[in-house]
């Protein structure tokens, strides 16, 4: 499996393969094709954009506008339509261009899609995958840079995955689309260009399972999405001091993999969770709390989280870089734990 493709290409390929396999799969979103009813494009069967980042490029020409549906700018409308289509037998994959737009469409997930099965006494199935983007680092400022996977993850009935690399992106997306529940598939827009090995065939990565990306016995670092790379950097640096860090890529934010995390902490006795979300009521804190309950007796030091500060995302590049959890901040945090370790 030597083929290396970009994160966004892996997502495109997963969508392509899911659509090829199951004609119940349809895509909806703003400009996921682009140029609907534009004469020169209709003639050439071309999409104008293929999504604002080009992730869905080529799918409309291949599957047509009945399956790759450009919507008006009506997030509540088309996200809710996806819920309705899912409840009645299709397998829609709506795209919420930026997860920040959830303010315009939360009800469809919070009160409708996620609760239908329960409220209806088990009769409904809502096989719907919401593709969305999150993350700071693109100078997109306060309203286009948030990381709200934790907010989605707080809603019962919703699964949330956050891939960190092309391989997992493809496999998780295929799992998500096959899943009979609402799955929010949250893509870090700053990872789109990242390349990695991706098999050409249809394969799945299991939802709900974290991956140990590096083994170690002294310290566990759990990461979400691109925070993985911060942790790997930190682990390299700590290795120079003889500290062996175990790095866990969470992959699924809801329901997150308690077993893998807790087993690791039982071994290392020390935990840092890195999450670029706003610092309160987020996934990092959830993990820290569960570990502080279920693995308390194995802990050799305080449970640490490294998150964004409690501010909106600033525009200026220098501030935005400061905003994001950095190796420097994680190293400082690790130092607090490791002092202890050296004693």
């Amino acid at each position, binding site marked *: 499996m030597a083929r290396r493709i970009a994160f966004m290409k892996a997502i495109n390929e997963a969508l392509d393969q899911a659509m090829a396999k199951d004609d119940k799969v349809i895509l909806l979103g703003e400009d996921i094709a682009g140029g609907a009813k534009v004469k020169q494009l209709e003639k050439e069967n071309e999409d104008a954009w293929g999504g604002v980042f080009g992730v869905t490029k080529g799918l409309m020409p291949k599957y047509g506008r009945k399956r790759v549906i450009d919507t008006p700018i009506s997030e*509540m409308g*088309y996200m809710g339509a996806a819920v*309705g289509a*899912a409840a009645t037998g299709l397998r829609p994959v709506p795209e919420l261009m930026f997860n920040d737009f959830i303010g315009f469409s939360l009800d469809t997930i919070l009160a409708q899609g996620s609760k239908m099965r329960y409220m209806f006494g088990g009769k409904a199935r809502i096989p719907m995958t919401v593709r969305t983007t999150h993350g700071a680092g693109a100078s997109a400022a306060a309203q286009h840079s948030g990381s709200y996977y934790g907010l989605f993850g707080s809603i019962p009935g919703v699964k949330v995955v956050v891939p960190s690399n092309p391989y997992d992106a493809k496999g998780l997306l295929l799992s998500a689309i096959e899943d009979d*529940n609402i799955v929010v598939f949250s893509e870090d827009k700053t990872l789109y260009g990242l390349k990695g090995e991706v098999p050409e065939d249809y394969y799945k990565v299991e939802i709900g399972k974290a991956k140990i990306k590096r083994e170690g016995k002294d310290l566990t670092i759990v990461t979400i999405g691109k925070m993985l790379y911060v942790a790997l950097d930190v682990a390299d640096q700590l290795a120079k001091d003889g500290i062996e860090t175990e790095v866990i890529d969470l992959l699924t934010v809801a329901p997150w993999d308690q077993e893998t995390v807790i087993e690791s902490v039982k071994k290392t006795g020390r935990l840092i969770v890195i999450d670029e979300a706003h610092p309160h009521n987020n996934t990092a804190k959830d993990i820290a709390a569960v570990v502080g309950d279920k693995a308390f007796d194995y802990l050799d030091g305080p449970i640490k989280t490294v998150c964004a500060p409690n501010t909106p995302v600033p525009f200026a590049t220098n501030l935005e870089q400061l905003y994001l959890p950095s190796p420097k901040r994680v190293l400082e945090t690790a130092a607090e734990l490791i002092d202890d370790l050296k004693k």
Partner: protein
Amino acid sequence: MEKLNKERAAWIYKKMNDIRNFENEVHEIFATGSIPGFVHLYAGEEAVAVGVCAHLTDNDYITSTHRGHGHCIAKGCDLNQMMAEIYGKETGLCKGKGGSMHIADIDKGMLGANGMVGGGFPIAIGAGLRNQYLKTKDVAVCFFGDGAANEGTFHESINMASIWKLPVVFVNENNSFGEATPQWYASGSKRIADRGPAYGIPSETVDGKDLMAVYEAAGKAIERARNGEGPTLIECLTYRNYGHFEGDEQKYKASSGDENTFAKRDCIKEFRQYAVDKKLLSAAGANKIEKSSTEDIEHAIKFAEESEVPKPETLYQDVFAD
């Protein structure tokens, strides 16, 4: 559109009576405290749900509202299970976990009452999209109130239905009030149907107390939808017999004048009269239907009361499908 025949007239008369009896009984029982939560009664508006659903099969979808019992009954949901649901019993349509505001039966094409005003619009769009995509002739009917017409979902959804020519019929139940707020205060347009042109779709206002007016307007609209001609907006002027929910003092209702005259009209009596006049129903046949309806509702109450509450472990079930 088919002309109303005897069989259908009997069906209509039965459903109208079922709704009225169901709601009147729930009204009484609620007052005794046996039914928990919020209950919004449909009595008075029967002509709308029944006039529309008379054209639908189990393959067609509807989305409903917080005031959903009438739509449920008209769409063919089981009366026993409905009543049990409102009581919160394990034999309920939703195993007691939904209640009055979330009563639903997807197998019957009933996509749920909805506790969220305006929550049904986008769901109806989704059902319409599905019907169109699968090249069925099925339609989706979206029932909504005059108050709901001021939610953004109304706008987004009707616009989408229009541009995609979806087989969706928007049926507005304009009962003059959203809770205690009159439509003439809350709406910038005099009529809800005035909004159709904003989306380039046909729209009309009909007398929602007149079963036949609703039946005919709905019939045309549903036929258009089945033929791929796109959505329609029908505004049905109606009135509810009870308050917004049980417990409402209804100080905002007029005690005389046009509003009150309208309020006093009984769509069931009017339909009976019409059907008997047109020889669609015999007086004896109508009486028989009335009686069987009363019995059915009595039976439903008995069924509900004798049913068990849900087992504790069901609290944790049906969050996810596997």
